[in-house]
């Protein structure tokens, strides 16, 4: 009760709410994710897949100005078990990279660019320059997503 009074008294507002894109993204992200998780809670069948699904969905919905989010949404809506991360194949990718060390440098770079393309949702459909710019904001959104997820996890424990 007292806390509530304190809360009401000292509500704070930012003077520039929408100027900060990271804040905007994080806000959107959590606003998508938390209710979705709540809903999952209600259903009591929060398997790993569905949580991941919601996580990715929240990511895609919060970053709709980017091309990769479109692809991500497509992927999510089309498949029930989306895999935006392929952790199992990571080891294989690392091995491949080390094998090609002695190869042609230009070929190496091409190889790595292609690998980046596989990491980015929808990367294969883009050309290299577009992919590189999309990767930039994808990384940023991933970072914000990790922060948001960490805070949510820590809050619920």
């Amino acid at each position, binding site marked *: 009760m007292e806390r509530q009074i*304190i809360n009401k008294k000292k509500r704070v*507002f930012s003077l520039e709410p929408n100027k900060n894109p990271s804040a905007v993204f994080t*806000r959107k992200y959590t606003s998508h994710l938390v209710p979705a998780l709540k809903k999952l809670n209600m259903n009591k069948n929060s398997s790993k897949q569905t949580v991941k699904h919601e996580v990715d969905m929240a990511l895609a919905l919060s970053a709709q100005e980017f091309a990769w989010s479109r692809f991500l949404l497509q992927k999510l809506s089309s498949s029930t078990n989306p895999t935006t991360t392929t952790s199992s194949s990571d080891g294989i990718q690392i091995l491949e990279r080390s094998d090609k060390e002695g190869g042609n440098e230009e070929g190496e770079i091409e190889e790595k660019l292609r690998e980046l393309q596989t990491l980015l949702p929808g990367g294969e459909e883009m050309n290299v*320059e577009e992919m590189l710019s999309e990767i930039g904001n994808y990384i940023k959104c991933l970072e914000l997503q990790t922060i948001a997820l960490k805070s949510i996890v*820590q809050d619920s424990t």
Partner: protein
Amino acid sequence: MNGGDLLLNCTDMSVLERQRAHLKYLNPSFDSPLAGFFADTSMINGGEMDGFLATAGLNLPMIYGQTTVVGDPRMSISPETTLGTGNFKKRKFDTETKDCNEKKKMVNREEVTEEEEEKSKITELNNGSPKSIKKMKNKAKKEENNCSNDSSKVTKELEKTDYIHVRARRGQATDSHSIAERVRREKISERMKFLQDLVPGCDKITGKAGMLDEIINYVQSLQRQIEFLSMKLAVVNPRPDFDMDDIFAKEVVSTPMTVVPSPEMVHSGYSHEMVNSGYSNEMVNSGYHHFNPMQQVETSSDPLSYFNNGQPPSMWHSDVQNLYGSLGV
């Protein structure tokens, strides 16, 4: 352009005529611009031309021996410089130049490209002083670039086409494919530089391959982290009373280190999207306080620390300043 005509009784004539016809087609009043253009090039190439011709050896007089305007060697070079599409780099042999010299005595040549190749052979083999030649080639490339791209200052009337005007650099090929390739490569390097700032630890690495490696590793680690966190969330999640209000108010006060995006939470408080306005000053305080220690604590290779050390501190700092300003603290 009489001077030009005079010396063009060699095989150059056909090419230049062709060019003129082409330009005429493009612009009916081409004559004066073209004349100006050639005069321009001669002016530019004047110094080097003399040097070039001086060291040209025997071949050049033989080639242009038919011309009566030997005293105006600059003009003889200019048509040559306007030709050639990146063939300057090709290295040919002596025997071929002899053939070329013989062929040069013919008035009408059919193959434009062959001509260009031979001219390039000549320019390369008559390399008395490489530097002057290179400069000449460079400027030749520039002119040729201008010509092929219709971007010379004199022929600006022809610039209705949408060419990307790229200035050729020293020692670089100038055909349209290479130019496009170079532009593409430059765009890619530009984006890579941006990514270098974004990905932590990339500024120490030079070279595309290493940087791409870093970027790939970083993206993979971020994705893995997210996966891990979502797994954790799935485990942790089954909590019927998952209420943001309580969570923030309770958790934050007790454990100041938890909620990182609390400033944003505060922002969202009034946006009534998900969280109602229950965010207290305590949360802001703790958010602010923990923010600084987080910078020092998380010095591991956790991406989170990079994120904190990178852009967010300045960004959140201003936000928090706003918050405190509105608080009147």
